[in-house]
């Protein structure tokens, strides 16, 4: 066993943290529960700087502009970007689309798509969920019908984050309505400027502006298909590994936990001992620190499994589920310990910790994503423990 990085990995982590500390000052950092175009553009700028060092697409081959490194380095990058509160940008292309193209794309597709992703030049969004399709993703209804020149898309995608920023949408569509539901789905990359695509704004409670994406007779060239027709479900599931480890999410929450710990050690609101010396507060901080460290280990186990070439399955669900629960427990603890001040928003004069407390509580209402917690418990029981379906 080894719970540490190699010297090279440690060095990468240190350099990365130093770089981010220098380039992402406090006032440009992402605040939980807030989103702004300006911050997002700053995130893209940082991405391009990372790309210049071959750090951005750390896992892609160097010939496409990547770093040629493995899953551990991907994990380090994700955790540090989260911990450094770098405004999120580009992550769907980097985390989901590029691995899928690497695995299933033609040489032409690799040449066309990978390098712009690695350079941080393009933004992707992901079209999986639909208005009537949530946990049971394989029942999706967006149709892609063949006609003479290619496919024609009709239907809608829902909960599409970054749809307004995206150059392309990476989506699943039904190509064979007659087949068993998992076997009639294909993967496509679609230019968002294609005629027939329209966006309905779908603001999120964390300040993000997602969209419903409507497809009205959208014509796609044959080359938009990724991999094999009707094998899209299986392809998507095996490459759905952007932050499969969850280290990005962990890093961003851990940062606020560390901030609150500092705050409790430094602040004595009633003029007496610091908050952290109150037995109940101390107990809660210790309990949450245990939760954070556990979450971290569960995430790193996923990254390590990926680094060995395995496809983590129940392990990824365990890390995701634990993180979802822990984030909520932490948010509730934070709001309790800081009292009404925790409800103040970023920008309000007396808001502690940049308003990240109310923001993280808001973010913690995201009790889903890659399936509900119920779905993840099902996966752990059925795939992890071999219980009957």
């Amino acid at each position, binding site marked *: 066993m080894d719970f540490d990085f190699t010297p090279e990995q440690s060095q990468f982590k240190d350099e990365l943290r130093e770089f981010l500390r220098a380039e992402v000052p406090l006032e440009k950092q992402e605040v939980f529960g807030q989103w702004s175009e300006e911050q997002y553009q700053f995130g893209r700028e940082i991405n391009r700087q990372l790309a210049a060092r071959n750090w951005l697409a750390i896992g892609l081959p160097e010939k496409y502009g990547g770093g040629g490194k493995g899953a551990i380095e991907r994990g380090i990058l994700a955790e540090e970007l989260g911990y450094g509160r770098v405004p999120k940008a580009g992550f769907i292309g980097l985390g989901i689309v590029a691995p899928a193209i690497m695995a299933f794309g033609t040489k032409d597709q690799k040449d066309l798509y990978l390098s712009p992703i690695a350079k941080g030049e393009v933004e992707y969004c992901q079209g999986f969920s639909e208005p009537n399709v949530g946990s049971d993703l394989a029942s999706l209804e967006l149709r892609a019908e063949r006609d003479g020149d290619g496919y024609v898309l009709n239907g809608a995608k829902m909960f599409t984050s970054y749809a307004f920023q995206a150059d392309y949408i990476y989506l699943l569509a039904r190509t064979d309505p007659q087949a068993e539901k998992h076997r009639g789905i294909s993967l496509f990359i679609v230019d968002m400027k294609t005629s027939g695509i329209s966006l309905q704004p779908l603001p999120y409670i964390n300040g993000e502006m997602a969209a419903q994406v409507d497809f009205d007779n959208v014509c796609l060239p044959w080359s938009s298909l990724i991999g094999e027709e009707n094998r899209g479900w299986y392809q998507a599931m095996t490459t759905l590994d952007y932050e499969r480890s969850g280290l990005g999410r962990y890093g961003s929450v851990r940062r606020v936990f560390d901030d609150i710990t500092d705050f409790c050690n430094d602040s004595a609101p009633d003029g007496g001992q610091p908050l952290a010396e109150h037995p109940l507060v101390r107990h809660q901080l210790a309990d949450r620190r245990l939760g954070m460290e556990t979450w971290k280990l569960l995430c790193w186990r996923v990254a390590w499994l990926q680094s060995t070439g395995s496809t983590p399955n129940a392990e990824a669900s365990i890390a995701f589920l634990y993180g979802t629960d822990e984030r909520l427990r932490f948010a509730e603890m934070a*709001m309790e310990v800081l009292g009404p001040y925790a*409800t103040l*928003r970023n920008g309000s004069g007396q808001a502690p910790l940049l308003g990240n407390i109310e923001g993280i509580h*808001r973010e913690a209402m*995201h009790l*889903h994503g890659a399936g509900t917690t119920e779905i993840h418990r099902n996966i752990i029981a059925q795939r992890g423990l071999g219980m009957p379906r």
Partner: protein
Amino acid sequence: MNFSLTSEQQLLRNTAREFLAIECPTSVVREAEESGVGHAPDLWRKMADLGWMGICLPKKYGGEESLLTDQTVLFEEVGRALVPGPLLSSSVLAAQIVLHGGTDQQKETLLPGMIRGEIILTLARGERLETSSQSGNLVLSGDSSFVRYAGSANQIICATRPAIGAWPDTTLVLVDGQADGVIKTAMESIANYPQFLVEFDDVSLPDDAVLGEIAEGRVALELATQRATVIQCAETLGRAEKVLDMVVEYAGMRQQFGQPIGTFQAVQHRCANLKVAVDSGRLLTYQAAWRLDQNLRASDEIAMAKAQSGTLSRLATETGHSIFAGISFTVEHDMHLYSDRAKIAEANLGDTEYHLDQMIVD
């Protein structure tokens, strides 16, 4: 022993629910919140006409002189419907302070107008508020945070601390929100109403600004806080009940894997757990209200109700967002209206930890 509402109380509940279904749809709720005023003037006037502002106040001031239990019934509905405006802070907390602490003159000046919906009061408290006597004049200084509706309230009741060596206990004073030296700074939060940091820069007060007598404000403040705490529990309870209704309905309708998600045991058990907490909250809340109505010692029962109320809030929030999942993360869905208010209510008038600490354990 009888755990049911009287037929009058059931009527009150039904009437309130029907009225609010028409007059307080979430469009009104959202408009009040987005306007920044936290208030729906039309709705406010109609609620005043129904007597809601004075439900527990004496008839001689225009009130209904009903039981706290009746007000509890009413506020379950207020909670369910997410009614905007300073109903709790003005018509319960502040009004009860005036009732228990004010002179006859002050009651006559303030309560009828409040009951008619024309006067809004609010309470400012805090360790740093102080009234002192300077060359024979009363002077108010210090500051108070999280003062609700301080921008629009007609009067701010300040609970000022005992002055060492002079006044041995809390003094309540009435201050015009527009008076010289009153500086208000908005505190932007997840709350659905405006609140302020209010600074009092040596504000001179007339002698009749003292509510009741100097250094005798504590009892009135405590009595009013007790009642307001029960009503806060009722409001939280109503919201949690509504969330439960909403998720049960949605789970019966939303199809996944070829069946309503309400057929899944995990979803059923989440709902069952919330049902247990809702029923517990109802029993604890009404027990506290009933004891106050009976003039029985109730401080423990109030603490228990409020301690449980925090837990109930969290469970309703988690259950709602879990079952609605993605859709509840959107602004257009109503769930976040419930979860934001739940978080505010949890902290208001003491959270779970605070009230557990108030409970007797011997």
